[in-house]
C-alpha cells in the first residue's frame, strides 16, 4: 500500500540564478547586415585594389592640377608640343625630353628643351599644341569628368530610385502604366537620345549632365523596382504593415535600407558609363566646348596627334582605363559581398 505523501514546497526548490551577465562570444553576437557586407567586401583583394585606385584618382583630381607649377590653361606659344621630361629620370636618360621625329630624310632625335634653352623647368607629361602643361590638364580633365559623372549619377539615383520604388511598392495599375512608359523610353537607343539632346541644348557641362541623366535613370529604376518587389513580401515588411505603419514609414524605414546594396553597385557602374558617354560626345563633336578640358576632349586631342606625339595620349588614356577598371572592380566586389 502506497503511502500518500504530501509534498510541501521548500525554499530550496526555486533558487534564483546567479546574477552574472554572460558575455556573448563573437560567433553569437548579432551583427548588422551592413557590418557583414563590409567584412565580405574587404575580404576581396580585387575590390580593395579597386577602392584604392578610385581613392587615388579622386585625390589626384582634387589636388593634381595644383601639383604642377603651371596653370592648366596657361598658353605658352613658344613651348608647344614639348615631350615629357621628368626631373629625376631625366639624368638617367629616360624621359629626358628628347623625341624621335620621322622626317623625309630619316628619323632624327631632337631635344626641344635644349633647343629652347629650358633647363630648370620640367613638363612631366609634356605640353600640348598651345603650350599648355599636360600634367595639370590631365588632372583637371579628370576632375571635370568626375564632376559630370557624379552629378549625373546622383540625379539618376534620385529619379530612378523614386520611380522604381513607387512603381514596385504600389503595384497594380500604377506599376503597369509606369512600366509601359519605361518600356517606351528604354527602347530609344541612348546614343540617339544623347545626340539629339546635345543638338538642342548649348554645349557645356550642364547639358552633358542633362543628356546623361535622361538616359541613365531607367536602369536605376529597373533595379530598385526589382529589389522592392523582392523585399516588400518579406516578413518584417508585412509585420510593419500589420502594425499599421504608414507607407512612408515602410518605404523609408523598412525597404530603403535593404535595397541600398544593389543601388550602390549600380552607382559604381553608372559612373564609368557616364565618363564613357562624355568622351563619346567629345569624339562626335558634341562634347565640352573648346577651351575647357575633360577626359573626353583630352582623348580626342591626343588621338588626333597620335602618329606624331604619342605622349599626348598616354596619360589621359591611362587615367581613363584606371578609372573604368577601378569602378568595375569595386562594383564587382560589392555585388559579391551583397549576395
Amino acid at each position: 500500500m502506497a503511502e500518500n505523501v504530501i509534498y510541501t514546497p521548500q525554499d530550496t526548490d526555486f533558487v534564483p540564478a546567479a546574477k552574472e551577465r554572460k558575455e556573448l562570444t563573437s560567433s553569437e553576437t548579432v551583427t548588422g547586415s551592413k557590418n557583414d557586407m563590409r567584412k565580405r567586401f574587404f575580404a576581396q583583394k580585387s575590390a580593395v585594389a579597386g577602392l584604392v585606385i578610385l581613392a587615388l584618382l579622386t585625390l589626384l583630381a582634387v589636388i593634381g592640377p595644383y601639383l604642377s607649377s603651371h596653370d592648366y590653361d596657361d598658353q605658352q606659344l613658344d613651348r608647344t608640343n614639348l615631350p615629357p621630361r621628368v626631373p629625376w629620370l631625366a639624368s638617367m636618360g629616360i624621359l629626358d625630353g628628347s623625341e624621335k621625329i620621322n622626317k623625309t630624310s630619316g628619323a632624327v632625335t631632337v631635344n626641344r628643351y635644349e633647343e629652347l634653352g629650358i633647363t630648370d623647368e620640367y613638363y612631366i607629361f609634356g605640353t600640348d599644341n598651345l603650350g599648355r602643361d599636360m600634367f595639370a590638364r590631365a588632372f583637371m580633365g579628370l576632375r571635370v569628368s568626375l564632376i559630370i559623372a557624379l552629378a549625373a549619377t546622383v540625379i539618376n539615383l534620385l529619379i530612378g530610385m523614386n520611380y522604381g520604388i513607387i512603381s514596385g511598392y504600389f503595384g497594380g495599375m500604377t506599376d503597369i502604366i509606369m512600366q509601359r512608359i519605361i518600356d517606351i523610353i528604354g527602347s530609344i537607343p541612348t546614343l540617339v537620345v544623347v545626340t539629339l539632346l546635345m543638338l538642342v541644348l548649348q554645349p557645356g557641362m550642364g547639358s552633358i549632365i542633362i543628356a546623361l541623366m535622361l538616359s541613365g535613370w531607367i536602369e536605376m529604376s529597373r533595379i530598385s523596382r526589382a529589389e522592392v518587389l523582392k523585399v516588400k513580401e518579406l516578413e518584417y515588411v508585412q509585420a510593419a504593415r500589420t502594425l499599421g505603419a504608414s507607407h512612408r514609414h515602410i518605404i523609408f524605414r523598412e525597404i530603403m535600407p535593404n535595397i541600398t546594396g544593389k543601388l550602390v553597385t549600380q552607382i559604381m557602374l553608372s559612373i564609368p558609363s557616364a565618363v564613357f558617354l562624355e568622351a563619346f560626345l567629345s569624339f562626335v563633336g558634341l562634347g565640352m566646348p573648346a577651351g575647357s578640358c575633360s577626359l573626353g576632349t583630352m582623348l580626342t586631342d591626343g588621338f588626333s596627334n597620335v602618329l606624331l606625339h604619342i605622349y599626348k595620349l598616354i596619360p589621359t588614356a591611362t587615367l581613363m582605363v584606371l578609372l573604368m577598371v577601378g569602378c568595375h572592380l569595386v562594383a564587382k566586389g560589392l555585388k559579391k559581398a551583397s549576395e
Partner: protein
Amino acid sequence: MGRYLRRRIIISISILFVILLILFLLMQFMPGSPFNDAKLSEEQVASLKESYGLDKPVIVQFFRYIGKMLKGDLGVSYSIAPNTPITSLLVNRFPVTLRIGFLSLIFGTLAGLTLGLIAAFFRSRIIKVIFNILTLLGIAVPSYMFAMFFSWTLGYKCNIFPMLYDFRSPMFSSAMPILALSLSVMAVIGQFTRSEAEDVIKSDYVLLAKTTGMKSSTIIIKYILRNSLIPVITVMASLLVSLLTGSLVIEKMFAVPGIGGLLTTAISSNDYSVVIALSFVYSALYIVVMLILDILYCVVDPRVRLGGKPS
C-alpha cells in the same frame, strides 16, 4: 506563342510611333535653320521653306512626315549633299555598318563562348586569373580605347593592318574595327557563359546524363551549351546598344564609310534632317533586333512561350 508574339509586335510598333513623334518634336526645337546661308534673302528663304513644305502647320507636317517615313522616304539632306534623298546616302553605307557590326557580334560571341566554356571546364588558378583580367578589361575599357591602342600598335608600329578603311580590300581593312568592337562582346558573353556553364555542370540533369554513359561531346552541346545560351541571348540586347554607340566613334577613327560616319558628319554640319533620319534608322534597327532576340529567346526557353516569366 502566337499571342505572345502579337503582343510583342504591337508594343514594338507603338514604340516606333512614339519615337517618330519625339524625333519630329525635337526637329521643331532645333536651333538655327537649315538655310543658314547669309546670302539668302527673306523671299528666298520663304520660297525654300515652301518647297520643302516647312510653311505648313505643325500637325500637317507631322502626318506628312509619318507617311513619308513609313514609305521609306527619309527626306532630303539639306547641307551635306543638298537635295539628295537620304535613302540614297544610306544605300551604300548601311551594308558596311551592318557587316562590321554583325561580324564583331559573331566573332565576339564565338570567342566569348569558347573562353567561357574553357574557364568553366578547366578550373586551374592560372586560367581563372587570366580569364578574370581579360573579362575585366573587356567590360570596363570602352571600345574606342581599344581602337586607339590597336591603331597605334598593330597599325602604326607593327604595320600589320591598314589604319584606314580601304575600298579595295574591305574585309582586311575592317579587321581592326571588328577586333576593337568585339572585345567587349567577348568579355560580357565569356563571363555569362562561364557562370552559367558552371551552374549547369553542377546540375542534376547533367549528372544523370553522365551516369547513363552519354558521350561527353553530346552532353556539352545538348545540355551545357544550350542551357548556357539562354542568359547569353538576354545580354545580347545590351551588347547591341554598346556596339551601336561604339561603332559611331570607331567608324570615325578608321574612316569607315558607314552610317556612323555619316551621322558624325551630319552633326558637325548641322544637317538636322540627316541626323533625325539616322536616329530613326538607329532606333528602328534597335527595335527590330530586340524583337528578333525576344523571338529567339522564345525558341530557346520554352517557359516564355507558356506565358510564365523566366526567372
